[in-house]
């Protein structure tokens, strides 16, 4: 029986509505409780900010394309270790890489920022054992992964034939087989088209051969998701990412959710999560007249409660883009001519990886930076708008503290803007310079833990300090009543916690890893009767089209690390 008492911190817990009150947090046997005995270990948090452990709703940290990025970029490691004043080994294993960190660095670096849960944003089902192997080697963090469904041949056929129940049975089967948590959609139809070198850039472009449109795919998957009542909603990276003028396609995608209402027992209210919405909020007709569409997009999001999003903030770094949007990565490579990796995955999905430099001296990069921040600053309900960098696409997750700084400080935004070569053009093409909104700690807590946890349907366990939740706590060196006027100090406080506590165990103290307790793999277990038709279809496709045998496809139990199932019953 372990007990821990965190005393006198300023508590920010949007799930329970606590806005900076001075209070104690008690943890017993890994869970938040009302009180603990006098034998409890005490942490003095006076003058410090206390939040639940951070929850990342969308990050690419584990699995085949992340690892392809690591493998193909030795230069992302070179001179970024101790050579250049990098990290000294703190945990059991060394930490490597900047934009695509090693699994060990991933675990340690998230923990140092006070995060305890991440949701891997795209798991190709065929390659699921790889994702789970990386989970095993990622310390501290609890992790989940979303299998991709938006270009899956089974889903195409069931949705085209309007067989909702069959599609639901297939989705449930696949979540079980891959130990996945929810439905991810990436460039619906477009990635399948890319297998023939084509793309779907609007929601109405037909998918070659399959005679279905992205709009039908998305609606079919929303219906499936709500039929099953999964903890998370459909999680979408829509068509036409990254192109000028795409905000219209984004609005088209968002409107697909209009007639749907969330049905689930997990407290989730949205039916669609639009991820890295910054990449989808572009106006203009070319890179020459490129401008922000943040206002149009966020006006729509603000007005529609059944939508959540994360921002995908550009951090102005040299990074590595990676997505299941295969055609986009090819397109990007044609622009920057650096190396390009691509992996089309049979019957299911694809992906691409391209290094990218968001140079603050390039106008477009500056505008992209502005758009992400505008989206957050226009948002009315920050429970529905989450901080991400679409790690590592718009920048590495290790820059979250910097993103928080920009959101909390107009001065910090101005300072960054002032370093840009095309500052005036960036200002002309966006509204960032006129925005004086500064977010507070409560809003940051919404955007970094409470909101994502609620959208994931996991708020009873993560992102919250309510009784019964996991004892995951981040204590930051920030006096909530006397925030530093120097924004750099805000960034520094969020970069390295005073304490990070994972299930009641202090894992980080003063920014240093001191313990590596066990971690969980979260997944969604749908209990429903076996569907004979679907099992027949699965067997047939495995016999005829897959190159891996059905019996070797589902992740073997011994390869799922410390599983923690979210269960639900479907009659």
């Amino acid at each position: 029986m372990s007990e821990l008492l965190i005393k006198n911190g300023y508590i920010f817990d949007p799930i329970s509505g606590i806005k900076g009150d001075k209070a104690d947090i008690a943890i017993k046997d890994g869970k938040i409780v009302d009180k603990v005995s006098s034998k409890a270990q005490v942490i003095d948090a006076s003058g410090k900010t206390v939040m639940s452990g951070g929850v990342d709703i969308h990050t690419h940290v584990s699995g085949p394309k992340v690892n392809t990025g690591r493998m193909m970029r030795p230069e992302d490691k070179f001179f970024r270790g101790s050579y250049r004043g990098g990290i000294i080994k703190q945990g059991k294993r060394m930490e490597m890489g900047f934009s695509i960190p090693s699994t060990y660095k991933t675990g340690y670096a998230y923990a140092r920022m006070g995060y305890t849960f991440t949701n891997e944003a795209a798991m190709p089902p065929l390659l699921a054992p790889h994702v789970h192997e990386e989970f095993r080697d990622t310390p501290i963090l609890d992790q989940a992964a979303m299998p991709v469904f938006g270009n899956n041949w089974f889903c195409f056929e069931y949705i085209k034939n309007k067989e909702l129940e069959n599609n639901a049975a297939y989705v449930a089967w696949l979540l079980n087989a891959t130990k996945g948590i929810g439905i991810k959609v990436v460039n619906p139809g477009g990635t399948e088209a890319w297998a023939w070198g084509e793309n779907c850039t609007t929601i109405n472009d037909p998918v070659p051969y399959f005679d279905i449109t992205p709009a039908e795919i998305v609606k079919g998957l929303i219906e499936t998701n709500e039929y099953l009542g999964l903890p998370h909603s459909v999680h979408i990276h829509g068509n036409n990412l990254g192109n000028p003028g795409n905000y219209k396609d984004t609005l088209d995608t968002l409107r697909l959710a209009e007639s749907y209402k969330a049905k689930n027992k997990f407290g989730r209210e949205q039916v669609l999560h639009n991820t890295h919405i910054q990449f989808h909020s572009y106006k203009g007709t070319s890179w020459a007249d490129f401008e922000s569409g943040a206002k149009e997009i966020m006006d729509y999001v603000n007005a529609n409660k059944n939508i959540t999003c994360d921002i995908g903030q550009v951090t102005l770094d040299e990074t590595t883009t990676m997505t299941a949007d295969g055609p986009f990565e090819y397109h990007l490579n044609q622009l920057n001519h650096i190396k390009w990796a691509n992996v089309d995955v049979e019957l299911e999905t694809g992906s691409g990886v391209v290094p990218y430099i968001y140079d603050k001296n390039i106008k477009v990069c500056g505008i992209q930076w502005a758009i992400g921040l505008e989206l957050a600053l226009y948002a009315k309900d920050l429970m529905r708008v989450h901080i991400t960098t679409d790690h590592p696409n718009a920048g590495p997750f290790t820059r979250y503290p910097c993103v928080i700084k920009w959101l909390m400080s107009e001065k910090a935004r101005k300072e960054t803007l002032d370093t840009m070569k095309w500052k005036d053009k960036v200002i002309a093409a966006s509204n960032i310079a006129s925005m004086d909104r500064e977010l507070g700690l409560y809003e940051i807590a919404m955007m970094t833990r409470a909101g994502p946890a609620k959208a994931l349907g996991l708020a009873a366990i993560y992102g919250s300090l309510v009784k019964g939740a996991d004892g995951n706590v981040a204590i930051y060196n920030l006096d909530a009543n006397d925030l530093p006027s120097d924004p750099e100090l805000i960034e520094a406080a969020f970069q390295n916690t005073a304490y990070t506590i994972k299930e009641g165990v202090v894992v980080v103290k003063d920014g240093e890893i001191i313990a590596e307790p066990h971690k969980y793999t979260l997944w969604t277990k749908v209990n429903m009767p076996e569907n004979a038709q679907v099992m027949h279809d699965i067997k047939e496709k495995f016999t005829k089209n897959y190159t891996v045998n059905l019996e070797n496809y589902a992740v073997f139990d011994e390869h799922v690390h410390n599983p923690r199932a979210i269960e639900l019953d479907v009659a």
Partner: protein
Amino acid sequence: MPKVIENVGCPYCGCSCDDVRITVSDDGKDILEVENVCAIGTEIFKHGCSKDRIRLPRMRQPDGSMKDISYEEAIDWTARHLLKAKKPLMYGFGSTNCEGQAAAARVMEIAGGMLDNCATICHGPSFLAIFDNGYPSCTLGEVKNRADVIVYWGSNPAHAHPRHMSRYSIFPRGFFTGKGQKKRTVIVIDPRFTDTANVADYHLQVKQGHDYELFNAFRMVIHGHGKDLPDEVAGIKKETILEVAEIMKNARFGTTFFGMGLTHTDGRNHNIDIAISLTRDLNKISKWTIMAMRGHYNIAGPGVVWSWTFGFPYCLDLTKQNHAHMNPGETSSVDMAMRDEVDMFINIGTDAAAHFPIPAVKQLKKHPWVTIDPSINMASEISDLHIPVCICGVDVGGIVYRMDNVPIQFRKVIEPPEGVMDDETLLNKIADRMEELKAKGEA
């Protein structure tokens, strides 16, 4: 009652076939029958249950003979020598599961040494090319279901990957390729008239060592400079180049499979690098992918595991504690051997003594040499210590990565000989022992 085990993975080549059917004896110790497997795979399973498997570590004695010792002694000896060496090298992993490769990473991080795998002498140059130019690839099912043009360049699957053509590339009938071989065009580019060339529609007998020039010529055609080609490039006539380039351009889905013919010759990585450039070019007008014909069933594994562990797939220098370094040519096994940069050698799941050029073997043999392998091989017969282990895919399961980096879950089919450890257990025990010795200040 003999038992039939289905869906068994074959621990031979990079095809990592997972449809093997094995009948095992009542007591689970013998393999009675093996089906759906090539001639080479059959031998592996046969050997797995042979009665003369080594069961105990063997230490070389001053008179040159080998003496059985306990696992504990072998683990302690290895741990102490690893700690003592200034720059120990662990090399191999051609036949090790990923769990073992992850444990090896832990061992060498504690030991502060060098960690390398067989890719260093096989597809290492392909990694170099991937570093420089990326890797537009796909899974093998994409080839099976979609490809209408197949190129084997410097690779000979008829010999090195016996079921590759039938399972994945030329013959299978996939979703969009219902007519199988009839609708596929096969191009083999090789200086020899290989058995693979024998089933091809086109065999381009390139002048050995001049593949780079031929790739350059194809790229010129794709970029619209076909007319500027000389009459012959690398032994291939201009008309042939133009004709084959036209086939490539008109493919619906093409794949280039390349092998040692490119990685072992002059230019090494650049031959692959330009092949990747050609693939990229072709994607402007068609859909093309490229894939390395990885040799062993899990030789993609260490590249995958060590990339997530350290960020580099091979040739790792872990001597600096806080960060890893990699630069083939410096940190690669054969180069280090020839330069005499290492002072201890662990050969695991391969046979460096047979597969390294002999001058490199002589250099490594100057220092303590440990072989970790189920079998007697050349390395075991010159080593100071030979530690037997289970055979992955036969008496231990685990995850392996197929040539297209698809993870395949291998099953255990028979019980290992009594007392024999698997790689993961052995390596973790060596790591634990090193930590113990360090804690005691005996390092």
